[in-house]
């Protein structure tokens, strides 16, 4: 029963789920890297992205664009969701975190939790409490490789996720602002002394992180076909675990951590009693933290690496 095709199929599923976790985990890790705060409202930003995607996609579908201009539709859906959530992220930082930047860590965490509840309830009121169906635009077509059926939707989503992560790596390592961002994560005072505008750097972090989360939200909607106001929670928990596993503050760590968490979850559910998949995932997290408390890519000292 465990044919090559089945195994390959599960690996593709693992890659898909892992990429989603990785995209969300990046938002946690980047924000933590810059301001040492866990943005607990990140799961809600992810959900907001899914809803914006739903709204835009439904609108475009009703005018027939999904069939006539497929690529353009996808570009608009993702761009709108990412842009909207980026604005939301910047607003969040401005309202909830900036005033508390010099306050105690606990105050900022409470503010983050408050924003999470606020956004979650806002979405519940505006979008309802039940599942909302996503237009299914990918259908079942795909390619069959060695007995494994890989749908066009899976291919599209995995490629897009990988492209976003590659783009992020290039941004952070090759561009002037990316370097400024890494410098700020390592030493904020020194960065300010070198003329880096810290507020601007933080703002860019709150554009990129939430935008990546929004993209993940749209992907989840497209793939699972439904979204709900509280779906951010379970993804948040998994992605947070991924960020911690990889070493919070580390960008490559978040990517690898996401793939590991997604991989373990999917492969465990495929071959072993699936009720235990979350237990396994978190046991793995505990084990890693037991032997390497700073996570796989984390720095051993107080300095945080992005």
């Amino acid at each position: 029963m465990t044919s090559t095709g089945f195994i390959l199929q599960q690996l593709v599923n693992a890659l898909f789920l892992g990429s989603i976790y990785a995209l969300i985990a990046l938002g946690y890790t980047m924000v933590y890297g810059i301001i040492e705060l866990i943005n607990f409202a990140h799961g809600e930003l992810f959900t907001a992205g899914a809803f914006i995607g739903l709204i835009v996609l439904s609108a475009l579908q009703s005018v027939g664009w999904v069939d006539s201009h497929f690529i353009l539709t996808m570009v608009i859906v993702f761009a709108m969701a990412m842009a909207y959530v980026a604005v939301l992220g910047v607003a969040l930082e401005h309202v909830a975190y900036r005033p508390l930047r010099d306050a105690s860590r606990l105050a900022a965490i409470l503010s983050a939790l408050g924003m999470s509840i606020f956004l979650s309830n806002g979405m519940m009121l505006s979008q309802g409490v039940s599942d909302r169906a996503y237009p299914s635009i990918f259908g079942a077509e795909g390619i069959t490789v060695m007995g494994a059926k890989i749908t066009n939707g899976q291919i599209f989503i995995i490629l897009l996720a990988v492209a976003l992560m590659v783009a992020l790596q290039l941004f952070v390592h090759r561009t002037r602002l990316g370097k400024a961002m890494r410098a700020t994560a390592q030493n904020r005072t020194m960065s300010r002394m070198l003329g880096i505008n810290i507020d601007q750097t933080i703002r860019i972090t709150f554009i990129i992180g939430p935008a990546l989360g929004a993209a993940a939200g749209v992907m989840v909607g497209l793939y699972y076909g439904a979204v709900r106001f509280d779906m951010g929670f379970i993804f948040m928990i998994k992605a947070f675990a991924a960020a911690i596993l990889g070493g919070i503050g580390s960008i490559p760590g978040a990517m690898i951590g996401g793939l590991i968490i997604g991989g373990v979850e999917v492969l465990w559910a495929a071959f072993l009693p699936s009720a235990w998949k979350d237990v396994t995932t978190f046991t793995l997290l505990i084990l890693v933290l037991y032997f390497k408390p700073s996570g796989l890519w984390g720095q051993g000292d107080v300095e945080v690496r992005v």
Partner: protein
Amino acid sequence: MAHLALKNVSKSFGGLLAVDSLDLELPAGKILSLIGPNGAGKTTVFNMITGVYPPTRGKIIYDGKTLNRLKSSRIVARGIARTFQNIRLFKSMTVLENVEVGMHCRTKSGAVRALLRTPFTLREERAIENKALEILEFFSLRRYSNEYASNLPYGDQRRLEIARAMAAEPRLLLLDEPAAGMNPSETAELMQLILKLRDTGITILLVEHDMKLVMGISEIVSVLDHGQKIAEGLPAEIQKNEKVIEAYLGSGRKKKK
């Protein structure tokens, strides 16, 4: 006219008067050393000049304009760069990247341009890299370009700090104990380096405990004690100054190496 002037500058932290009515003038293109026992207020002076905190009273005038209340990031854009007593390199960035970050205030590609990879951005990024390599060449650090900063020997890390400060193209450079922890041969090299920097036309304000270095390169030496200037003059004059000797040795306060 003085390149940088402190006029009647005071700074108090709660009840402690760290700097007391200090007047200081730096002539352009010269090396002025600020010395004094530990806790005399030297680093406080640096912090006020670079906008870490504003003076409680008095004025800091640079190029004829006051610097009071400007943010640090603005001050470096005006042309004042500094290094710190303890090494503050970006350890998990390469040597080259450290210098590139130092050029931040002289370059301008924003987020939108970076995302769109406009020709302007690409040209600017290439120019940044070339300029950074030139600076590393000047500081004999080019062979380490792609090493992580934390992998460098101590003396080279100190030099990289100065290189990174110079990347901001300052006309006034503040060095806070650059020779701290260096061995005599490294200090001798540093001395040559500081002179070489001065010869490129920039003004240097130096805080240092190594008297050989201070007396060897300074054109003016100012002595602080308890936040007040107790003496100022040529190195030779300062070495003979009674007040200075007393500040260092007299009242049982320990002189740092």
